[in-house]
């Protein structure tokens, strides 16, 4: 058999995580470099996957299949379609930046704090998360997916609770309590989602007798596997709930602001740009493929929730006093768009949604990481503590602005393409919802520019007057992201070409076709 590329892609960071954790305490820097190297190597593998993937080829490629727990009908089945390949690439792409951005986040406090912050652990956990995320993108076995979907909560939980943001207005003690609150909330919220999904997973087994995504999907397609309507709906709800929590979809979002606010910027990026994508990805792959009818049945409600999420998230972002919370709510709004695109059931919507996952990952990373640099300089997350930064640190301000413009999806930057595709895709089938969602772009401008104005413009606050501009390391983190934003903004074809066939497949799974334009229909 050929070289197990997918396994390697997932295993490399896993091994790297163990290795990093094993680095002796004294050799802190070595651990950092090791983590960085591993993440870069993973990126290389991911790129290889992307290259080896043939858009016109079979639906799932680079497949691997081994028996695992025969008793549960569980196999170790891997394989990527276009969507998965792209998202794996995204994950592998972001991790090096996250590592680099978090370079000093886990350093021990030189002051006499009793806090125990093992650098090794920090980077090992990041790599562990990467490994789990990647394998959950790769797996084509529902159970295998579920296992890592759940397991990735644990390292995330320690990342949030163990390495919180050092900037806190109420001092160390309050910080640690709030942090553990956020971590617990994150874990329990997602665990509840996951456990409810577990019930559905078991139910699926009872109905289908195995966990192979491909087999079940086929059987569903050719009708050999019949599900009672009610059964299908219940199972769908079980799956969807978990994904909706992870994504997160309004009103299941409240864990996200806490988590992002309390964790360090790189971890926040890890949450929203990488881990949460698993949720939306899973909606697209599992909900639609396994339960097409139920998905269609639930579509109206989901669309409404998504639109509420878009507007609601944006409005709350406007009302935030904390930079990271603001970004969190902005993300909630964006996830609304993604889910909207997925369930619009049009090729534009779904391709747009996939593209959106990628772009949102990059843009949020850019914005959040720069915000992190800003926060680390001033030691406060409160917007009110800043002002006039533009004057003292123009480069920082500039990158921040670009990140912001990407967030408000300015044409010419990557997010615009995806957002517009989603809107069009929605509009062609649900005009009213499409129009309401369009209000999101105005609100996005509002919260972004308000944030920029309050922090960067105006008279220079004395506290920020001595603020240094971006350092080399930080520039290395931000610049590539910005370049990528612009590139994908003017030339998204590489991504769309890979994604489109997969989306076409999904569309056929749900037996949907794009609505015809009126003019043609008229003829």
């Amino acid at each position, binding site marked *: 058999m050929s070289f197990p590329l997918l396994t390697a892609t997932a295993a490399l960071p896993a091994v790297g995580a163990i290795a990093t954790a094993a680095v002796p305490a004294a050799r802190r820097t070595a651990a950092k470099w090791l983590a960085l190297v591993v993440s870069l190597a993973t990126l290389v593998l991911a790129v290889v996957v992307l290259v080896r993937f043939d858009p016109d080829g079979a639906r799932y490629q680079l497949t691997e299949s081994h028996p695992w727990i025969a008793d549960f009908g569980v196999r170790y089945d891997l394989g990527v379609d276009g969507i998965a390949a792209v998202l794996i690439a995204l994950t592998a792409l972001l991790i090096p930046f996250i590592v680099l951005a978090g370079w000093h986040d886990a350093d021990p406090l030189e002051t006499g704090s009793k806090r125990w912050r093992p650098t090794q652990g920090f980077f090992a956990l990041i790599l562990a998360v990467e490994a789990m995320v990647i394998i959950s993108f790769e797996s084509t076995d529902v159970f295998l997916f579920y296992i890592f979907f759940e397991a990735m909560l644990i390292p995330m939980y320690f990342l949030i609770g163990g390495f919180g943001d050092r900037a806190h207005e109420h001092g160390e003690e309050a910080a640690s309590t709030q942090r553990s609150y956020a971590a617990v909330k994150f874990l329990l919220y997602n665990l509840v989602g996951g*456990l409810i999904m577990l019930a559905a997973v078991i139910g699926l087994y009872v109905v289908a007798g195995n966990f192979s995504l491909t087999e079940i999907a086929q059987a569903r397609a050719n009708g050999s596997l019949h599900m009672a309507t009610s059964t299908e709906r219940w199972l769908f709800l079980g799956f969807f709930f978990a994904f909706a929590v992870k994504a997160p979809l309004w009103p299941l979002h409240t864990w996200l602001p806490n988590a992002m606010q309390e964790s360090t910027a790189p971890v926040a990026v890890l949450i929203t740009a990488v881990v949460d994508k698993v949720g939306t990805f899973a909606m697209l792959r599992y909900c639609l493929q396994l339960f097409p009818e139920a998905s269609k049945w639930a579509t109206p409600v989901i669309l409404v929730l998504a639109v509420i999420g878009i507007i609601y998230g944006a409005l709350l972002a406007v009302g935030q006093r904390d930079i990271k919370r603001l970004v969190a709510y902005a993300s909630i709004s964006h996830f609304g768009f993604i889910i909207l695109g997925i369930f619009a059931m049009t090729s534009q919507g779904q391709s747009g949604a996939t593209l959106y996952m990628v772009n949102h990952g990059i843009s949020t990373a850019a914005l959040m990481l720069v915000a992190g640099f800003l926060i680390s300089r001033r030691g406060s997350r409160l917007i009110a503590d800043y002002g006039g930064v533009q004057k003292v640190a123009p480069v920082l301000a500039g990158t921040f602005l670009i990140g912001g413009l990407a967030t408000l999806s300015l044409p010419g930057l990557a997010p615009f393409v995806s957002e517009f595709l989603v809107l069009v895709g929605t509009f062609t089938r649900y005009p009213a919802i499409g129009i309401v969602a369009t209000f999101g772009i105005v609100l996005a401008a509002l919260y972004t520019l308000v944030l920029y104005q309050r922090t960067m413009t105006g008279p220079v606050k004395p506290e920020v007057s001595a603020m240094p501009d971006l350092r080399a390391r930080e520039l290395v983190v931000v610049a590539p992201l910005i370049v990528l934003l612009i590139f994908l903004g003017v030339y998204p074809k590489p991504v769309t070409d890979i994604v489109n066939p997969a989306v076409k497949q999904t569309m056929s799974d749900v037996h949907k076709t794009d609505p015809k334009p009126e003019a043609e229909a008229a003829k």
Partner: protein
Amino acid sequence: MSAAAVHSLWTTAADPITKIDAPKIEYGQLSPTLIVVGAAIVGVLIEAFVPRKSRYYAQVFVSAVALCAGFAAVVALAADGYGTTKAHIAAMGAIAVDGPSLFLQGTILLAGLVGLFTFAERRLDPAAHGNRVDSFAAQAASVPGSDSEQAAVKAGFTTTEVFPLLLFAVAGMLVFPSANDLLTLFVALEVFSLPLYLMCALARRKRLMSQEAAVKYFLLGAFASAFTLFGIALLYGYAGSVSYATIAQVVDGTVTNVDPALAGTMGNDSLLLIGAAMVVMGLLFKVGAVPFHMWTPDVYQGAPTPVTGFMAAATKVAAFGALLRLLYVVLPGMRWDWRPVMWGVSIITMLGGAIVAITQTDIKRLLAYSSIAHAGFILAGVIATSKDGVSSVLFYLAAYSFVTIGAFAVVTLVRDAGGEATHLSKWAGLGRRSPLVAAVFAVFLLAFAGIPLTSGFAGKFAVFKAAAEGGAVPLVVIGVISSAIAAFFYIRVIVLMFFSEPRPEGPTVAVPSPLTMAAIGLGVAVTLVLGVAPQYFLDLANQAGVFVR
């Protein structure tokens, strides 16, 4: 009863001795039990004749050998096919040698062995007057805080009797799940209960609580067994026999040669129903199912932690084994009567255990409630009444027992001036102080919580899967919800250990001897192996999933 019949009784008794044919006992097939019992008796003799200094070593050696030999015997029997093809009823119908009993006996023996390691640990408590001491009272008879106790401690007495007691308990547990008539069941129950009552009272520290635990456990246990016995009586009255096979036949109505008396009682279902309910109640008591669970937290807390660990693991295994056999072999005929009842019990057990655990402040009590919740999960598997149900329960029990012993073993390590520091507040920041121990304990907690890649998840999944296939989907949903609730307090402990500031006067983590290390290490290993690659053990459980009738 006619005079003739009475006369016949006399005459049979008056027959010449030669006419009695000796009972046929398959010693080989009973060897696991016999080995352990024998060893236990040897232990008693050691107490009597071996000088005090070397008793400890002799006892530990004998017990270890016995348990290992017993396990070897079990493996041999299984390899010989007694678990599957050659499964049959031994000892004149008293003992069933079949898959489930062998699997459970193996589990119990291993649990006993690991438990033995923790019993034999002598490095945790600071040496008293130069004598290394274990976690058992110097002299159980001496009043706590009295001069005689001081004297006993000074003299370096240790209660080495625990080892024979442990063996007796194990022996009883070995018989319990394989008992094939109600009398054997009852005797086995008492045989393993009485040593446990005693061992509960033998704590070195906190002796008042220890004694209280013993009293509660004893009184309630005896109370429960009285119910069991009455139930047995009623079943006997119903079927005219205490042998599972016969009762099953009577229940199914497939009994041959019905004499008039039997015909009379057979008609009377209330005898059957009440009797069955009472016997089951006795078993549920041992399992620790709501509402028969209330002894659990107190006893778990008061008993010496090694005993708690052993008890929590092995008792559950044995009791569930017996319950399975009773329900699957004796009472399948009245499935439609007991299943709904068991549903109810399972539900309130899962929810009750999980909910009450949320607000616990003592780690041992917390684990006690968690064990109650787990009993509920296992019951869900029992209810499935299918081969999968059996094997899933077997697997769950195996997975669970190792996690439990391991967890309690870790609890023994965290100590302060007053012995083990079991109050949760003292565990704050443990992860900062000694990351390894905290990490290990976290693994156990995650396994309890049923996080994927731990044995807990595999077990839970197996059980719920069986239940769902058995049509108990609502049960699965409730189980899922209660595991979500349960997750909350496991997480709480993890938060406490890793994310909260350590107390300045916090406890220290004692460095144990290889014994405890082995116990913990084994626990972790099994937890992860069963979590990542459970297939082999699932197969094992599958093969063992058939009862002999």
